């Protein structure tokens, strides 16, 4: 199945702002993210980002950092096509979450996956925010 592409690609700077705002104002993350402190890589093929979270708030989103510029604990990697599948209001089957896309598409969960598991509820919610803020690829 081919994912439905976003109607247009969101400019990177605009995406960083809207992702940060959506996360910092999300009632669920703010209600349950007291210990949501970690750094992770979002590899979207055409761009990659390191999201650094502190106590449930976005401290920094590094855009296309160099190889050793910014540390992170785990990585969520997938093709731009897969990420575009996430960026729709109602994603098609297997584009509806990181477990689904890891089992059935080309998504990879790498690095210290324990940290992902420790923050799974908030990460799951944060990735679902892509349904409204879309993706910059």
């Amino acid at each position, binding site marked *: 199945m081919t994912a439905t592409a976003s109607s247009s690609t969101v400019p990177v700077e605009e995406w960083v702002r809207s992702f940060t705002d959506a996360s910092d104002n999300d009632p669920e993350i703010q209600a349950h993210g007291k210990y949501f402190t970690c750094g992770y890589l979002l590899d979207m093929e055409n761009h990659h980002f390191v999201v650094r979270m502190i106590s449930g708030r976005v401290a920094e989103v590094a855009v296309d950092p160099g190889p050793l510029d910014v540390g992170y604990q785990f990585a969520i990697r997938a093709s731009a096509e897969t990420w575009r599948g996430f960026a729709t209001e*109602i*994603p098609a*089957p*297997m584009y*509806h*979450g*990181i*477990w*689904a896309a890891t*089992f*059935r598409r080309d998504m990879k969960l790498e690095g210290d*996956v*324990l940290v992902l*598991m*420790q923050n*799974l*509820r908030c990460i*799951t919610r944060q990735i679902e925010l892509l*349904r409204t803020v879309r993706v910059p690829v």
Partner: protein
Amino acid sequence: MPRISPVTGRYVTVDVDDIQYKVFYLENGSGQPLVCQHTAGCHNHQWRGLLEDEEVTRDHRVIAYDLPRHGKSDPPENTEWWKEEYRLTADHYTKFIVALCDELELDQPIFMGSSFGGNVALQLALRYPDRFRAVIPVEGADYSPGFYLDWWQHPHANAAQVCASGVWDLMAPQSPEADRWKTWFYYTQGSEAFKGDLYFYSVDHDLRDKLDQIDGERCPVVMLTGTYDYLTTPDDGRRTADHIKNAHFIEMEDIGHFPMSENHEVFRRYLLQALERIGSRSATAQA
């Protein structure tokens, strides 16, 4: 008038393999027994919509039990179960279900289960075809590897949230948010049993070379699978049904791995089709 549900709960004592269990079950309705198994690491509230579904309960006695170690069914009454790792096997699981049906004196029940309950429905059709009028494997398949994971009980992570959020993607985004969150909530309660259940689901259950031994004429098999299920996909369900004599497969649109719990209103439409195919609905009910 007090708003009391017609659903009642009772306990029944069941002996299997020299182990004694005190089993909690919910029931409502009368007529053809319809025995319902929840998913791994969960409990019988997943069937809350079906238990109060008047169209089904007017000619079916819906019985939704908690498998031992789940919900209100305790672990074994007569063994030091805390000294062993829990790993559910197909042999014990099927014997338990038959013993439960015997204890409740059910005559030719229909068995329906989801996920590891769907897989055990296939095992029942193979091992005890004359004991059931039919089986309805929901989100089941001949083989479902990949979910017997240490993450469900990792000591450095919050097992309740790992289990609950780990199965979140098994539900469809179209399913009502409140029902998905109820299902999530149930999954925060069962991490200790979840992994042991998944030993059956992903390791002990393997019918890939036995499907031709299931006779869907002797024990009708109607399989239901949702399009958002990433563990047992519609392709897995269809492939399984294709290899069982006289089995029937129904793909359920826009629903996932916990259909009865995440969206009963969508699930019931497909379930009614399955019951019609089995022939358990009365003429009045179908009118």
